[in-house]
C-alpha cells in the first residue's frame, strides 16, 4: 500500500494523456495532410479557399493544411519528411527539390492520364522534370525579379545598368530617403551573385550559372571583383544603413513605406505595392552589366506528393486539382506569379501595368534565364554561408578578394564532387 500515491499519480497522468490525444477520423473519410512553405497570411487564406473547393468536389476527402512560419518552413518540411509519415501533399521549392528526391521522399507524379499536363506551359513542363528527370512536382508559378522604382523621386528613366542604378540611387539619397532597398540580411548574397553574373557577361554558362563556359567559377574573374565593389558602394552610398540586416520583409516595407526609391523583387510584390500608399511607381527589367547582359534564374515552387503517403491516389488528385487551369490561374493572380497555364497567356492581367516589364524582359535576348546549381550537395550550406559573407563584406569585416576567393574555392570544390 505504500506506493499508492505514486500509482495514483501515474495513473492520473496516463488518463490525462489518453484524454488529450487528438481524435481519430470518422470512418470512410480520407484525411490528407498538406504543408506549405512560402507562407504568408494572405496566401494561406487563398490556399484554404482552393482546398475548400477541392473538398466540395470530393466530399470524402478532408485536407488539413499546415502553415509553418516562413523562416523555418523548409526545415520543418524536411523534419516531417524524415519520419516518413503524417504528410501527403507538400510544397517543393527549387531549393529543396533535389534533396527531397535524393532521399526518396517524393512520389513520381503521373502525367499521361492527366489532361492538365498538356495545358501547362513549356516552361512549367520543363521545370516539373528538372530535378531527377521525373515529374516530382508540378510548379504552381514562377518568380522572376524586376525593378520597382518611384516615378515621383526625380528619376526620368529607370536605370538599365547597375552603374546607373548606383548613380540614380545616390541622387535620391538624402535625409530620411534612400535610393535603394538593399538586402544585407537573409537572401542578400543572391543579389551580389546576380550582379557578378551580369558583369561576367556572355562568358557565363546559363545552364550552370555559377560557372563560366570555360568551367571556371564566375567568382574567379576580375569582373566579379568589379561587381562586388559596386555592390558595396550601392550599400554605402545609396541605401539605408539599417538595410545591412534587411531581408525580404524589410526591403519590401522600405519601398512601400517610402523610405527607398528602388527595389528589385519578385512579381508577388506587385500586389503589395499596389495596396500600399506609394502611388507613383513603375517597373522595369533588372539592370544589366557593362557588356549589356543580365542573368537571373527563374525561381519556382510547386506541389508534390510524398512517396510514403497512405492515400497516394487522393494526394495525386489534390496536386492535379491545384495545378489545373482554373485553380492555378487563381493562385497565380492571388500571389501575382507568372502563371503555369497556357490559358493564362490570354489573360489581360498578366500583360498590363507592372507586368509589362516582364514581357519586355522576355523579349530581350540579353535578359537571360539561368539555372543555378541547386542540385549540388553544398547548395544549402552556401545559402547560409554566403549571406554571412556578404554581410561581412558590406560591414568591412571581409574584403572583396577574401570573399571571392572563398566562394571560388567552394564552387571549384563542388564541381569536383559532382563530376
Amino acid at each position: 500500500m505504500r506506493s499508492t500515491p505514486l500509482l495514483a499519480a501515474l495513473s492520473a497522468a496516463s488518463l490525462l494523456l489518453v484524454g488529450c490525444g487528438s481524435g481519430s477520423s470518422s470512418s470512410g473519410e480520407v484525411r490528407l495532410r498538406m504543408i506549405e512553405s512560402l507562407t504568408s497570411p494572405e496566401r494561406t487564406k487563398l490556399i484554404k479557399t482552393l482546398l475548400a473547393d477541392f473538398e466540395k468536389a470530393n466530399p470524402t476527402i478532408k485536407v488539413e493544411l499546415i502553415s509553418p512560419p516562413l523562416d523555418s518552413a523548409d526545415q520543418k518540411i524536411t523534419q516531417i519528411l524524415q519520419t516518413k509519415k503524417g504528410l501527403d501533399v507538400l510544397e517543393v521549392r527549387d531549393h529543396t527539390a533535389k534533396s527531397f528526391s535524393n532521399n526518396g521522399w517524393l512520389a513520381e507524379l503521373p502525367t499521361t492520364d492527366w489532361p492538365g499536363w498538356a495545358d501547362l506551359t513549356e516552361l512549367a513542363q520543363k521545370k516539373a522534370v528538372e530535378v531527377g528527370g521525373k515529374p516530382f512536382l508540378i510548379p504552381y508559378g514562377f518568380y522572376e525579379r524586376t525593378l520597382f522604382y518611384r516615378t515621383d523621386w526625380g528619376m526620368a528613366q529607370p536605370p538599365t545598368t547597375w552603374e546607373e542604378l548606383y548613380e540614380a540611387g545616390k541622387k535620391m539619397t538624402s535625409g530620411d530617403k534612400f535610393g535603394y532597398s538593399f538586402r544585407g540580411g537573409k537572401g542578400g548574397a543572391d543579389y551580389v551573385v546576380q550582379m557578378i553574373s551580369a558583369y561576367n557577361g556572355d562568358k557565363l554558362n546559363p545552364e550552370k550559372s555559377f560557372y563560366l563556359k570555360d568551367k571556371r567559377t564566375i567568382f574567379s574573374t576580375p569582373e566579379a571583383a568589379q561587381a562586388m565593389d559596386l555592390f558595396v558602394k550601392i550599400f554605402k552610398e545609396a541605401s539605408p544603413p539599417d538595410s545591412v540586416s534587411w531581408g525580404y520583409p524589410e526591403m519590401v516595407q522600405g519601398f512601400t513605406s517610402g523610405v527607398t526609391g528602388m527595389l528589385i523583387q519578385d512579381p508577388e510584390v506587385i500586389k503589395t505595392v499596389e495596396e500600399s500608399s506609394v502611388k507613383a511607381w513603375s517597373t522595369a527589367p533588372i539592370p544589366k552589366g557593362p557588356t549589356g547582359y543580365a542573368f537571373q534564374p527563374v525561381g519556382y515552387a510547386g506541389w508534390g506528393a510524398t512517396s510514403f503517403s497512405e492515400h497516394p491516389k487522393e494526394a495525386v488528385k489534390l496536386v492535379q486539382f491545384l495545378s489545373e487551369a482554373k485553380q492555378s490561374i487563381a493562385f497565380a493572380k492571388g500571389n501575382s506569379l507568372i502563371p503555369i497555364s497556357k490559358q493564362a497567356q490570354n489573360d489581360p492581367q498578366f500583360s498590363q501595368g507592372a507586368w509589362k516589364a516582364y514581357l519586355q524582359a522576355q523579349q530581350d535576348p540579353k535578359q537571360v534565364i539561368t539555372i543555378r546549381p541547386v542540385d549540388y550537395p553544398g547548395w544549402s550550406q552556401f545559402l547560409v554561408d554566403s549571406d554571412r559573407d556578404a554581410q561581412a563584406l558590406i560591414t568591412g569585416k571581409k574584403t572583396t578578394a577574401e570573399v571571392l576567393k572563398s566562394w571560388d574555392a567552394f564552387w571549384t570544390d563542388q564541381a569536383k564532387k559532382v563530376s
Partner: protein
Amino acid sequence: MRPAFTLRKARFIALCLLPGVVFVVLFTYYPMIRGMVIAFQRYNLFDITSTPFVGLENFRAVLAEDRFWTALRNTGTWVAVSLFFQFFLGFGLALLLRRHFRGRGLYQAWVFFPWAMSGFLIGLLWRWMFNGQFGVINDLLLRTGIIDQRIGFLATPGWAMTSVIVANVWYGVTFFAIMIMAALQSVPKELYEAADVDGASKLRQFWHVTLPHIRPTLALIVLLRIIWILNFPDLIYSMTGGGPAGSTDIITTFLIQQVIGGDYGRGGAVGLLILGLLLAFSVFYMNATRFEKAR
C-alpha cells in the same frame, strides 16, 4: 542522521525516483546521446540515405571555421558583460529591497515582471524598441539630444552586441535580485547583533558578516547563471538572428544555424564542444570557489 540503507528503503527510494529518471532518460538522455553519436557521422539532411561514420571530420570542419571562433569570442563578451551588470544591478536592488518598507510587496511584484516573459518575447519587444526607423529608443535619444541622428542599433555590428546585452541585462537583473535577496535573508540575525555590539559600521558589517556568509550561495548562483546565459539563444535569436555579419553570433546561435543549414553532423559537433566547454568550466569554477571557501 540519515537512516541506514535497507531493502525496504531501497524499494521506496527506487519508486520515488523512478518517474523522474524514466522521463529524463527517455526524453533527454536518449535523444542527447543519439545527437552526440550524430556528431561523428556525416549526417546532412541533403542526403540521409547514407550516414557513414567519419570520425572527427565534423569537429575538424567546425574548428576550421572563422565563424566558430568569432562566435566563441562573442560568447565571452555576451556572458561576461551581461553577467557583470546583471549581478551588480541585481545586488544593488536586493540590498535596497532588503529592509521592509511600505509598498515593498507591490514594488517587487512590478519590478519582477520581466521574469514572467519568455526570452523570445523579450527579444521581439526590444527589437521593436531598437528599430532604426520607428524605434522608441532612437526617438527618446533624439528628443533628449543625446544623439542627433538615428542609430541602426541592430544593424551596426558594434551597437548590435550592446543592444542585445542591454535587453539581456534588463531581463536578468530580476533573477539575481530574487536570489540575492533570499541569500541575504538567510544570514542569521545574531551575527549582526554581535557585530552591533562590537560597534562595527554598516559597511564593515557588510564586508565581514554578510559577504562571507552568502559567498557560497553567490558562487553557485553565478555558476548557474553563466551556464544559463550561455545556453540562452532565444533572445539573440529573435532580436538579431546572430547578425549583422555574425557580430552577435554566440556559440548557441551558431549551433542553430548549423542545424537549420541541415548539417546535423556539424550541429552535433558544436553541441558536444559546448558541453565540453561548460563541463570544464564548471569543474574549474567549482574548484576555484571551494578553494576560497576553505580559506
